[in-house]
């Protein structure tokens, strides 16, 4: 009798048959199999850190929003002492949903079914007609609070995990944190949400979106080619269509053994357009002032030195992270969008792709600004983000067909045995003088970061409890 490592699906297929580590291929069956989805709820969504929102969504004590960790609804609330808590939104009594609305403010979350009441930190206050002791005496009140997730705040971003004994959030990010700091912890006051997130359903498996975020560069040229034909990257006359967009493919890509990914895109051409000078003739400070990070103004640039190292600032002025993912289901977009008048306006967005069964995901889109972004720029950034990304996004709407097609295709028996391929492999390594940590490769975008995403998914799925 052979001992197969890792899960074995009901039809006898070992999960290990679905991932070919040598050829860098993953079988399409992973995109629609119900059993794989169930295993993911335990081994991925039950184990890693998940992004739930931003603390500027719940600024005051008692503020709360309702979010999801995998298939579980959670209440993300700020208690009186200012701490953020994440509680399973399921009543310990009979399983009713405790908080039925998406957002609000309350010091007591009361279940409408039998009136059990909970504090924002999940503690059980009691049930009505206290002397009748509805909760009985077999379990103490301390056992009857809302199940708590472990919480970490990073740049105001609220992360949570059910894995209380697992790696810390910093360990989860690993070397990638050095790069994410340039996005989320770059200024003194930090980021804030422009409002609540957009939410809509795409009928695709969450991994079709998750793996693309981590970080598919190539598809920009073809799926998003309208950008180069009639959109913001339309070539000036005399140049070939699409050439401006092709330039966005060059930079350095960060891969991570934990599946995080960042596409650091070269700013030299944009800087040349704005200043008339070569990037090599300008200091780090001059470049950052000429083309500040998205959402920042030139006079905010001096804050970078207070929050980041000179090496991080060097990278921000040269090839800043602009798009990429955070494992398992997050995309970040910190974009420098060319305007018709030659200027650049930033757009900052984060999405999570929340699994809703193997066939569906909820696309949750938060738009960000800096707390100090001046009002006019703030308005421009929000409008631009709504027009390019998210629900009516002219860029992202084109993604919303590919994910369902892949998911539907994977239900065909022949197709389910076909594979997704990650065979565009870097041979370059880090650019000369690159000061940052991690697995770095320079040049035209390739598949390495996405392959690392799948390798970590595989590692988690194959792990023992």
């Amino acid at each position: 009798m052979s001992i197969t490592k890792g899960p074995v699906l009901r039809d006898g297929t070992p999960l290990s048959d679905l991932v070919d580590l040598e050829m860098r291929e993953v079988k399409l069956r992973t995109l629609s199999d119900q059993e794989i989805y169930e295993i993911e709820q335990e081994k991925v969504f039950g184990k890693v850190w998940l992004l739930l929102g931003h603390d500027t969504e719940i600024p005051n004590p008692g503020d709360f929003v309702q979010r999801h960790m995998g298939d579980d609804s959670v209440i993300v609330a700020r208690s009186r002492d200012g701490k953020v808590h994440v509680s399973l939104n399921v009543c310990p009594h009979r399983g009713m949903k405790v908080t039925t609305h998406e957002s609000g403010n309350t010091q007591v979350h009361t279940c409408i079914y039998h009136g059990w009441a909970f504090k924002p930190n999940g503690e059980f206050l009691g049930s009505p007609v206290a002397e009748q002791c509805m909760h009985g005496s077999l379990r103490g009140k301390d056992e009857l609070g809302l199940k708590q997730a472990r919480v970490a705040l990073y740049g105001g971003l609220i992360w949570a995990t059910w894995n209380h004994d697992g790696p810390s959030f910093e360990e989860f990010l690993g070397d990638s944190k050095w790069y994410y700091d340039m996005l989320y912890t770059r200024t003194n006051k930090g980021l804030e949400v422009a409002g609540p997130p957009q939410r809509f359903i795409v009928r695709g498996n969450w991994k079709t979106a998750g793996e693309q975020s981590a970080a598919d560069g190539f598809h920009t040229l073809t799926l998003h080619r309208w950008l180069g034909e009639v959109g913001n990257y339309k070539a000036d006359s005399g140049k070939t269509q699409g050439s401006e967009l092709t330039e966005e493919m060059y930079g350095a890509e960060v891969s991570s053994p934990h599946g995080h990914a960042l596409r650091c895109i070269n700013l030299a051409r944009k800087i040349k357009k704005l200043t008339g000078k070569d990037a090599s003739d300008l200091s780090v400070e001059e470049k950052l002032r000429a083309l500040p990070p998205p959402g920042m103004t030139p006079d905010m640039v001096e804050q970078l030195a207070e929050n980041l190292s000179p090496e991080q600032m060097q990278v921000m002025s040269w090839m800043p992270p602009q798009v990429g993912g955070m494992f398992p289901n997050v995309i970040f977009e910190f974009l420098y969008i060319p305007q018709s008048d030659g200027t650049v306006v930033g757009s900052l967005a984060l999405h999570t792709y929340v699994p809703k069964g193997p066939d569906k995901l909820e696309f949750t889109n938060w738009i960000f600004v800096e707390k100090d972004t001046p009002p006019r720029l703030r308005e421009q950034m929000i409008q631009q983000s709504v027009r390019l990304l998210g629900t009516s996004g002219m860029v992202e709407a084109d993604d919303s067909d590919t994910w369902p097609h892949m998911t539907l295709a994977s239900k065909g028996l022949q197709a389910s045995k076909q594979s997704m391929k990650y065979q565009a492999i870097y041979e370059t390594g880090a650019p000369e003088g690159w000061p940052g940590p991690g697995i770095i490769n320079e040049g035209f975008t390739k598949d390495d970061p996405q392959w690392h995403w799948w390798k970590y998914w595989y590692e988690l799925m194959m792990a023992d409890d």
Partner: protein
Amino acid sequence: MTETTKPEAHMGNSVGIGSEIYNKVLQHYYTEALLLDNLRLQEWGASLATDLKYTVPVRQTRTVQDIEASYIRSVQHMDDDYASIMGRIMRLSGKSAWSENPPSRTRRFVSNVQVFETDKPDEYASINYLLLTRNRFDDDFFDLIPSQRNDLLRAVEGGFQLVRREVLIDQAVLGTPNLSIFL
């Protein structure tokens, strides 16, 4: 006491159903729906005022006491002006707008049209209902997008131009994967 026949009295004088103006507004809406359902986007674009503001708020599930907070306008699903709508039309008319190529098959059912005078003699406000059905590829189901539209129309030679549209969709989590189509 609210007059049950005039619940929207706060909007201004009602333009009576069946009146000449009302009929012209209704015709405008039917023509608009026909143009959009038949992908005649440039012609629809010609019916838009250059000072157009076109928004689709986000909805949230809130308590009944807090119903106004269920309409989110800080971040919206659509936030457009004349120039950006024209940009959308240009994109959709090109060869690479994949989200609408092949195009959705849509049907716009406009109903419950009410028209009101405003303080400008050539401008009319309208509250109307839109039910949009959407189908793509081999789907054996339809995405339904029911909404209330709060419009401002300006009478011009030959008809009306859309000056303002706010579309209040009846979902917090949209069941359709994008709004690449016009409401």
